[in-house]
């Protein structure tokens, strides 16, 4: 069941060209939504201004090689492993959601374009990955929805209460993945299966069509912001933040006489204070 292509079976009812046109339309909606979002929020302008300010305050110039190394590090750490998250639960949930979404969307496109009908059977790995992607998206997404969403974790909102436009993205993701799986698992029960398919398409359209209003475009902004954070650390501007010093260095101790010399680099009696507990004291 999970190794058979659900779109090929659907091709009996809906022509494959319609499915392919829908996928192309969704891609166009994402592109248009992101561009409009960028124009509206003036993100490109903001990032360029930030880069200009950093260059002005820089203590050393970065070469092209160094910048590409930083870009690769950004991709490897912040993008591929969601390294920006300090909270491990948020990080793991985001990894499941992100990779689940990517696997699901890519396999959907491959199944619809390369193996559209039952005449071209898809290799079993593809529908398996399709189901796996949707399952991962559900796992990370529902975990986020029930306990990690900041309104629930830090502001006392109950999980069943929607809390503004910020929920549009996660609702779209969860609806798309849940109804995709339900549609696939009810194949054979015609009306129910068709209902789940209609809901799957509805939530997918909501997700890709609401890019301008939802958090969707963060997947483009966040890597840019992460890259800039690495650049400002490397060129010394640090957005005017103080540097991180090694407390056991005698030069540092002579420069800042308030630092007791017995503290050493990692003082034994210090520990988590503010960050000891999760921020849920609403």
């Amino acid at each position, binding site marked *: 069941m999970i190794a058979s292509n659900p779109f090929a079976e659907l091709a009996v009812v809906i022509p494959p060209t319609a499915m392919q046109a829908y996928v192309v339309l969704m891609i166009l909606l994402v592109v248009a939504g992101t561009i409009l979002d960028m124009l509206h929020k003036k993100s490109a302008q*903001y990032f360029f201004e*930030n880069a200009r300010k950093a260059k002005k305050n820089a203590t050393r110039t970065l070469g092209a090689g160094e910048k590409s190394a930083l870009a690769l590090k950004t991709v490897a750490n912040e993008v591929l492993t969601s390294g*920006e*998250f*300090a*909270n491990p639960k*948020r990080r793991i949930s985001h990894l499941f959601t992100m990779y689940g979404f990517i696997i699901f969307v890519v396999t959907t496109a491959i199944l619809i374009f390369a193996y559209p009908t039952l005449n071209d059977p898809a290799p079993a790995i593809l529908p398996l990955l399709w189901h796996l992607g949707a399952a991962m998206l559900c796992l990370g997404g529902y975990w986020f929805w029930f306990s990690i969403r*900041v*309104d629930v*974790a*830090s*502001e*006392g*909102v109950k999980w069943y209460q929607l*809390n*503004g*436009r*910020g929920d549009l993205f996660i609702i779209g993701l969860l609806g798309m993945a849940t109804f995709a799986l339900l549609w696939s698992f009810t194949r054979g029960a015609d009306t129910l299966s068709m209902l789940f398919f209609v809901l799957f398409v509805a939530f997918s359209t909501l997700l890709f069509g609401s890019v301008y209003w939802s*958090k969707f475009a963060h997947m483009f*902004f966040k890597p840019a*912001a992460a890259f*800039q*954070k690495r650049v400002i650390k490397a060129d010394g501007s640090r*957005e*005017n*933040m*103080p*540097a*991180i*010093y090694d*407390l056991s260095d005698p030069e*540092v101790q002579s*420069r*800042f006489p*308030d*630092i*007791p010399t017995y*503290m050493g*680099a*990692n*003082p034994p*009696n*210090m*520990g*988590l*204070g*503010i*960050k000891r507990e999760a*921020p*849920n*004291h*609403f």
Partner: protein
Amino acid sequence: MPTFVYMTRCDGCGHCVDICPSDIMHIDKVTRRAYNIEPNMCWECYSCVKACPHDAIDVRGYADFAPLGHSVRVRRDEEKGVIAWRIKFRNGEKDMELLAPITTKPWGKHIPQLSDVPAPSQAMRDSQLLFNEPKYIRLDEGELHTLESNGLVMKEGVYY
């Protein structure tokens, strides 16, 4: 001047929401990032600035230590037990960094408890230092005001 959040650095973790003593840092419902909902009630205590794990909050320093157009940033490292300040003047002449220990006592010990200290006596309340205490503390007319004494009930959660 009140705090503001750099939205590209904020990831909506909620630490500033938790620590703000005036309860004015909240999470925006649209972008799901933090923001200051009542800037004129902010008294620039720097709690949110220090609590933010991503250094995403900034606040203009008071004029008694930093002139117009300055930049003041602070980083509190509680595992190393130090607090670092950096003040830059707008003429570029002054770029001062300060590094000091947060405390040299072990974390979690020797915390002063207000309940261990006796309440002010009537003589102290009548003295010059405390005579101006606002009437609504009502130490002279019975117990301290509480939610229960005013017939109110605490409602859990954030509503705005």
